[in-house]
Structures are given as C-alpha cells and as structure tokens.
C-alpha cells in the first residue's frame, strides 16, 4: 500500500516536471527560433 501511494506522488511530481520542461522548451524556442539540440549552446562559455 505504501509503495503504490509513493508511486502516486512520483507521478504527480513527474507531471509538474513535464509542465515546467515544456515551458522551458517554449522559452528557448522563442529565444533561438529552433529546438534542434545541436544549435542550443547558450550554456556554453
């Protein structure tokens, strides 16, 4: 029972992560006009 409840919490946290990750993708696309991972190097120094 405890395990299934913990799976429930993991699913909720993963759903929140997915929402934030997709928002980051939108923000990067607005910056760079691409979602090709090879052309995204804004973290590179």
């Amino acid at each position: 029972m405890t395990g299934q409840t913990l799976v429930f919490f993991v699913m909720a946290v993963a759903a929140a992560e997915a929402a934030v990750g997709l928002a980051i993708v939108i923000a990067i696309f607005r910056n760079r006009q691409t979602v090709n991972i090879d052309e995204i190097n804004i973290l590179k120094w």
Partner: protein
Amino acid sequence: MVVQRNPVMSAIYLIANFFCLAALYLLLRAQLLAVLQVVVYAGAIMVLVVFVIMLLNLGNEQKLTERINMRMIIGVALAFGILLEFLYLYLSPRMQALPESLPPSAGAIGTVESMGRSLFGPFLLPFEITSLLLLAAIVGAVVLAKKQL
C-alpha cells in the same frame, strides 16, 4: 535510436508507451495507478506535449536518411527471440503448475478505497505538499512561457 523525425508521430508512439505502462500496472494489481497513468499521462501530459508541438509549428525537418541498418536488424531479431522464449515459458506445463503466489486479498490493495484511506490517512501531509508543488509548477510554467516577463 530515433525512428521517427516527425514530432507528432513520436507523440503518438509515446501515448502507446503510456498505455503499455498502464498494462504493466494492471499486471501488478494496481488498478488505480493504471487508470491514473492513462488519465494523467496519456490524457493531460500528452495534450500538453501535442499543444507545444503545434505551438512551435515545427515544419521542415530533414528526413531520416538511414532507414534500416545492421543494428536495427539485430535488435529486432533479439527482441523476437526473447518474445519466443517468454511464449515458451508461458505455455510450458511446468509454468502453469506453479501455485498462485499472491494471497487472494492482494487484489484489494490497489483499489480506490484503500488508496484513498492511505492518502488521507498516514500520507496526508505529503499529499498536501504535492498539491502545493503542482501549484508552484503551474505558476512557474506560465511565467516561463509568457512572452513578456
């Protein structure tokens, strides 16, 4: 291995993957988790993913050049082999003679009632914290995706 460059087709494959995961939950006798997997992931998350794909309006992706190579052939052959092995195991008489390993009360674990009793009983505080986390994620996603901060 990327089979499809088309994002919408990839999203449909992801939906199929989520349904397979729900079937795994069902095999583990976690009925509520299987339903939640379909509703939350194959429903809500996939709507979000497809919405972002449409919003970004990805068009001219270059086609995948190498369609079938040696690795793919070997992988499919190995997967087929393990499928045959599982079928042989499942159909063998020794497998069917195994006793039922789970007690008969194991089916009552994953029901909505027992999950609800657990969530609103000993796990009440994590449950409320999860709701706060979801609220923060919603606000953060809106702020990140907004045009002007």
